[in-house]
């Protein structure tokens, strides 16, 4: 049995779990290739114009997997991965959108992941998915537990400065060495599925590293401290990723080793449009830049903005000793 996992959206947060789970159940796991021009074109062709860029790219990944002769494609319905929080409406309707938008699909494994109230249904659904491959209930539970452990291992790698995408590559046996010398340290925030996808983010993180910056992503930070910071906002942010981003931004503001913060938003992303505004208003002492991307974004414009931002940070540091320069110009 062959299970296809599209390399998009929550791949960057949960792939080790899913891969281990399916492999332990005796299935062969294939992923679509990492995002390229062809995938993007296919995605734009199949998705509605108004969908956000990562969703369009996901359509492309699913179409790519259709050629691979897989028995199943894993398209989970992610409603909520923690109590009383959501991901985004589009994730909640994703399997239905894919089914309506693409024809000649292999069967989808559209497990519903919703633990906003109780974990009971998730456990039941995992067993149901596992039963596609085996009839041993204990094996299914073991595989899931193994998956959770592997995911934890992989996430631990992030604490030494790797992005989730790099952590997944290391977890799969690659070796990646991060540059050790740097002039600036920049906090880079954004939804993982756009930020860590090299093509969607137009290699933002790698570019910053080449400019001599140390990149700090949200996963580096101590997650309890992030939650405490996020709770400072008058109303609890009910998007899981959004809350982590707000918390991370506020935490980075307090860290002396972060020179500035860049927020990568997707055009048309609902949470980003609100969260970006909140962060922009709360950050008083650190330079902050918000970049919005979609399929029409040009690389040159982005590079110019990054260079300008880094130059500004450098100059700010030089002058800092003598006088105070406002973060807002």
């Amino acid at each position: 049995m062959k299970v296809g996992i599209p390399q998009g959206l929550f791949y960057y947060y949960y792939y080790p779990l899913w891969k281990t789970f399916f492999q332990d159940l005796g299935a062969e796991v294939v992923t679509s290739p990492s995002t390229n021009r062809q995938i993007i074109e296919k995605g734009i062709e199949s998705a509605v114009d108004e969908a956000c860029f990562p969703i369009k790219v996901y359509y492309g990944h699913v179409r790519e997997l259709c050629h691979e002769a897989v028995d199943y494609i894993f398209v989970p319905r992610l409603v909520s991965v923690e109590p009383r929080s959501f991901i985004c409406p589009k994730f909640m309707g994703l399997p239905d959108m894919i089914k309506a938008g693409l024809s000649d699909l292999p069967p989808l494994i559209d497990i519903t992941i919703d633990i906003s109230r109780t974990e009971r249904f998730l456990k039941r659904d995992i067993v149901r998915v596992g039963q596609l491959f085996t009839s041993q209930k204990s094996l299914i539970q073991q595989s899931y537990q193994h998956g959770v452990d592997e995911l934890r291992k992989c996430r631990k790698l992030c604490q030494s400065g790797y992005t989730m995408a790099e952590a997944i590559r290391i977890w799969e046996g690659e070796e990646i060495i991060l540059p050790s010398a740097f002039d600036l340290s920049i906090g880079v925030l954004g939804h993982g599925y756009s930020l860590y996808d090299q093509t969607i983010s137009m290699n933002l993180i790698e570019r910053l590293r080449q400019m001599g910056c140390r990149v700090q992503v949200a996963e580096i930070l101590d997650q309890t401290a992030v939650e405490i910071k996020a709770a400072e906002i008058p109303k609890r942010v009910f998007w899981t990723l959004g809350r982590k981003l707000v918390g991370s931004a506020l935490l980075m503001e307090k860290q002396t080793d972060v020179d500035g913060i860049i927020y990568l938003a997707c055009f048309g992303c609902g949470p980003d449009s609100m969260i970006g505004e909140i962060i922009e208003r709360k950050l008083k002492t650190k330079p902050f830049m918000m970049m919005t991307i979609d399929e029409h974004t040009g690389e040159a414009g982005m590079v110019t903005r990054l260079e300008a931002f880094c130059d500004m940070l450098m100059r700010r540091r030089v002058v800092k000793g003598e006088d105070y320069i406002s973060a807002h110009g």
Partner: protein
Amino acid sequence: MKITFPHMGNMHIAIKALMDGLKLEVVPPPPISKRTYELGIKNSPEFACMPLKINLGNFIEALEKGADTIVMAGGWGPCRFGYYAQVERDILEGLGYDFKMIVLEAPDSRIYDLVHQLKSLGENVSFWEAVKAIKYGWSKLNALELVERHFDHCLPRAWDKDQVEKIYDNASIAIEQAGSKEEAQAAGMEAIQAMSSLEFKLGQPLKIGLVGEIYTLLEPAANYDICRLLGRMEVEVCRSTYLTEWLNDNLLGGLVKKSIRKGLVKYAKPYLNYEVGGHGLETIGHTVHFARLKYDGVIQIGPLTCMPEIVAQSILPSISQKEGVPCMTLWFDELSGTAGLSTRLEAFVDMVQRQKFKAAKCLKEA
């Protein structure tokens, strides 16, 4: 305390009646105008959806008129509406306004918060007076809605369309000014009789269902008065949601009328199998419902980048194909224009009309 609130269709009439009953002073925002839009756009985050921008414009204009307390609804996602009040408060505070904001939403953890919020609104009156005030507001809304339904029925059929619009506009003013439940009902009945006595064209007009996001559906300023545009093209519009239904389902917990939501969930299967926040599921359910009622077409409207409606839009083509109903999606933002909208509507109506004609001819030949 001078209270203000955001506009949404005819809601200001009901809220005004309610607040009067609660013995609170109200300063309704001026009707949505170009200035409202401009103020909202200037001060809102660029990528926020349009209702937030109009809300903000409303608030600024009301605060300029002397309001000092804003009443706003809230929610707990996943639609971004739940975070509107927070962002709007931050922006208004940043602009230097001094005001208090009361957010009506289910509390996150402590029920005490909600009680506290409600209490600050009703401190002048007893519980029974409050219930009476709610009933009074509700009756006005009901009276106006009857007129509205009649309006949708008469506009495409009448020869003199200006007259129909005039009757409706006068009725909404009369109901707003009515001092009691009986007066409001009388004004409503009068308007309905006036409309019925007009001369009508023969034959059945096309029937098109209107589905989509609630604010765009209810607020004519946000949808460029799409109902009247269609009515003037001699199309009978059936709105999927009226204000009373929405209030009944969302605020009053289905106490007043029987909720139709359960039926919609059933219709939405197998196209959409899960709640997606906002009105995504309702949009799908209503579309299937309209298709099975043999409507000639369905138009989905929403503010640009509305997440639940994008999910619905992605699914609409497969409904259109399987249920055999033409569907069109229109997005609205601050840059839409009436001319472009009319052209698209005309093209859609032409297409629907031709399809209907063709189907009728096939039937005759067979």
